[in-house]
């Protein structure tokens, strides 16, 4: 049986009602981990959950991103400062202690990406979680290279604890999704080459040299450059693209096929029948589909010394979480599987945002994904 065969997810108005009821009934001690960025959704999650008055612990770890160690001393950009002030005021008013800031340096002195290594070290060990019953990670203002290694480490720590303790620790991932807003956030360039996210490197050693590569890219808009950079690093015998369907815009999958047509249709390793469609608003469905796909490839290649499976999330954060869950589970089972991505050098909001921000904000939708703890009754 799959680990998340039965799952717990709430979204929209159910998100608020769940957290209200949960806090009233279970009285959790919460450690909230969030990123601080220019993204207008930065504070949505914490403002929603911490708005319910509670006498329990309400602590916050705030991740601050800096391109280099030298930038730490510099004043934050205007939008980040606005969000930071807003968060501080909110916590003050609510009577909770201010956030504990943790700096993440994204690039080394010699301009190598160190974001995912540093994200892994944010939570050095389980002692950080001891005082809390629930750990909430809000990924709304976290880049992929940060939240995947962070959730990986937290989930691993929580799993280790829950495996030997009767009272479980709960791990929640929340995200404020808004595809309209996503469309207005632009990449400010990408890293020179694709790399594995730290903790998710496939085993490329002499013992696995005969294993063939299978690549599973989750396709998203405006990511063809990243797609190409990942492809250059790989030599897959099979490519199994994942497209969003059902989705709010029913033509989204077709549009993506058009956007990637040269890459998909001129490649002998892409069989159109290999395309998998996954619900854009349900990471657990992506998880299930990916799990099945990975399982089938592992079975097929078993006689040929196995295979290396590389997953690349070029799509939304929700789908990325689904991909993460599948890879996490399969890696624990011993599959040679990894996540490759291309680090973004930065993001910026389109100039059109200011004019449309009120209308756009109406489409914000909070998702609660309960990854580990009580609902799963781990024994």
């Amino acid at each position, binding site marked *: 049986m799959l680990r998340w065969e039965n799952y717990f997810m709430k979204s929209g108005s159910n998100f608020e009602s769940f957290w209200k009821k949960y806090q009233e009934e279970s009285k959790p001690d919460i450690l909230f981990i969030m990123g601080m960025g220019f993204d207008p959704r930065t504070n949505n999650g914490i403002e929603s959950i911490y708005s319910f008055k509670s006498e329990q612990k309400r602590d916050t770890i705030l991740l601050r991103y800096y391109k280099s160690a030298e930038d730490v001393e510099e004043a934050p950009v205007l939008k980040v400062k606005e969000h930071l002030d807003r968060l501080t005021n909110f916590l003050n008013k609510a009577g909770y202690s201010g956030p504990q800031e943790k700096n993440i340096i994204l690039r080394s002195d010699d301009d190598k990406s160190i974001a995912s290594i540093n994200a892994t070290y944010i939570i050095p060990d389980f002692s950080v979680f001891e005082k809390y019953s629930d750990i909430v990670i809000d990924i709304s203002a976290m880049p992929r290279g940060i939240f995947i290694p962070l959730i*990986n480490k937290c989930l691993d720590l929580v799993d280790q604890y829950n495996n030997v303790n009767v009272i479980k620790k709960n791990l929640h991932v929340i995200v404020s999704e808004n595809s309209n807003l996503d469309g207005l956030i632009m990449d400010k360039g990408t890293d020179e080459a694709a790399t594995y996210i730290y903790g998710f490197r496939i085993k490329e050693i002499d013992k696995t040299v005969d294993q063939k590569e299978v690549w599973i890219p989750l396709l998203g808009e405006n990511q063809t450059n990243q797609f190409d950079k990942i492809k250059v690093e790989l030599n897959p015998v099979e490519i199994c693209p994942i497209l969003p369907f059902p989705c709010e815009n029913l033509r989204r999958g077709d549009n993506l096929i058009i956007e990637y047509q040269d890459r998909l249709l001129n490649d002998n390793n892409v069989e159109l029948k290999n395309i998998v469609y996954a619900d854009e608003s349900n990471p657990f469905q992506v998880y299930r589909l990916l799990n099945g796909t990975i399982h089938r490839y592992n079975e097929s290649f078993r006689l040929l010394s196995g295979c290396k499976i590389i997953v690349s999330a070029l799509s939304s954060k929700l789908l990325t979480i689904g991909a993460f869950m599948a890879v996490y589970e399969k890696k624990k089972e011993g599959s040679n599987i990894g996540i490759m991505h291309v680090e973004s050098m930065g993001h910026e909001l389109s100039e059109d945002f200011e004019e449309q921000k009120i209308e756009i904000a109406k489409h914000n939708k909070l998702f609660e994904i309960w990854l580990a703890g009580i609902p799963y009754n781990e024994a």
Partner: protein
Amino acid sequence: MRVDINPFYTRASDNIDSEEKFIKLFSPEILLIFKDYPIWHAVNVLRSSPGGGKTTLLKMFTPKILASIKNSKNHDDHAKELFNVLTELEVFNSKGDIHIAAALISFSNQYTNLEYLNLPGNQKIRLFCSLLNTRIILSVLKSICLTKDLNYPQDLRRLTFTEENNIDIPVHLRDIKNALQLYEWATNEEEKISDQIDSIYSDVSEVRGGDSFYPLDLLAPSNLKLDGNNIDVKVVVMLDDVHNLSVSQRGFLVKAVIDKRPLVNTWISERLKALTMEELLSEGSLQGRDNNIIILENFWAKRHVQFEKFAKSVANRRVEVAFENKMDFASFLSIKMSNKYQTVIKEALEKVEARIKSKYSVTSKYVPWIKTTEELDEDEYNKLVEWRALEILIYRDSNKVQQTLAFEDLEVEALEHQNGNDVKVAAQLFLHDEFKIPFYYGISTVSRLASSNIEQFLNIAGELFDLVQTNSVKKIINSNHQLGLSPEKQEEVIKKIVSLRWKDLSTNVPLFDDVKKLMDSIGQFCYSETYVPNAWNSPGINGIAITMAQRNEIKDTILKDKNHQYYKLARCLTICIAYNLIDFKLNYKCKGREWMILYINRIYCAKYQLPLNNGKFKEKTLKDLLGWLNNGITIKPKLNV
């Protein structure tokens, strides 16, 4: 496998899955680079900008490629040609057998991750050395098996080690009797270290092995016996993509390998950007008796005719893959102006001719010059160029006093002589500027735009070939449709590529805002010095120079002091060199002084409408450059026709 609709986009260094295809795309001219170096008797350090062809070169020496050349040399002329060149390089012996066992090891970011783990420094170095050592061992053993037709790994038991006392191998390996035992130890060790590096917890257990690269001695042919006999191949270790290592890892590796003088022939390949700022300004500071520093672009820069030949050969191999018959890529790049430009040319001709006649036909000295030009039997465009060249020459002659004064102020010397052609090139540039008549077209231009970098050439040629392929489809419908591209189409494509590349730099190049200001200032300065009525520096300048004394000051003083007023300038200059925006030449002697010349990379010459010829520059001081970096440049155009 991706279908190669446009084979110009296939890179031989990529994951080409067939040896035959790799060989087909490989042009033997590049192997000339090794002719002047004792490559088998020293450590070879291969450097270039991205796309210089380093990995392709190294891959040529790997066992499967060599075996494929050996097997097909009797029925494939190209393979035969490669075989002959490689035999001269002693890669094949006189019997035609493969004489080297080369192991190609690439550095991924797995090694770099190690640098940033929460571990003590000495532990990081040990892990780094241990992982690299296991990979050297495994790659070399596999390479020997492939070269000697042994089953890997089973037949490794036939490979034994002699007892060399002077080889410093770790104690725990001293009991190993044959290569199979070494293989088994190395595979387990590799897995263990890989797991430790990728672990999300920083609890790495003690690593055995120290901080030396012992396999570079242990696996020397003199220490190996196959079935009890001496092994008759050279063992070669090629360390590729060394630039992917962290600065300290790279520094440690390069120094350790060069200091070691290893018994195994060792190659190091890296991008220029991996070099320290000091090394960048020194053109390979480690050059010595025991190592060969080979900078690919520098090799070609001195041999442009050979580079053009090489580029044409590379292009023609790809055309052959696409069209399945031999065609000359150069033939697609028409140098004849299209009908669309005939009217422009005609009007320009009338204008220039009238301008000259109205100004100079009253001067008896110039009458025969004008008459000679009038009588030329050329097509309209060439006539126009001749008239414009005449205008330059008359202007020079009529302003001799000023010209002499100007020359006294200038440091000009051609590295390659144009035999009088330079005035014509200047005339073409002026026509391009005044009448928008295309200047950047033709195979020579495309190969010059490459700035001696083969990938840069393939990128430009690939975009042009895209259109050729479109034309080939149109030709099926209309047999009169031309495959080739007009000069204006070529120029349009080239300018689009330049503009896209420039845009990409903004995200790839550190301190880009400053770098851009400096580059734009140099470009605008060169433009203003090129477009002067007498074209005194024809065909134009595309570089500046600082004295070697100033360069030494940058290297020895400025770069070591972050608070120095010229530090930012020095940093920008090294970034320009590392990211291939500027090509440079050291110790150029002129007027009793020595200069460091900084040439704008040819592809960006197109951005500033500069000529592509090498050689013309003007001296500048660091103070001038700092002024440009801080305030930009404001120069009024001098060419006012």
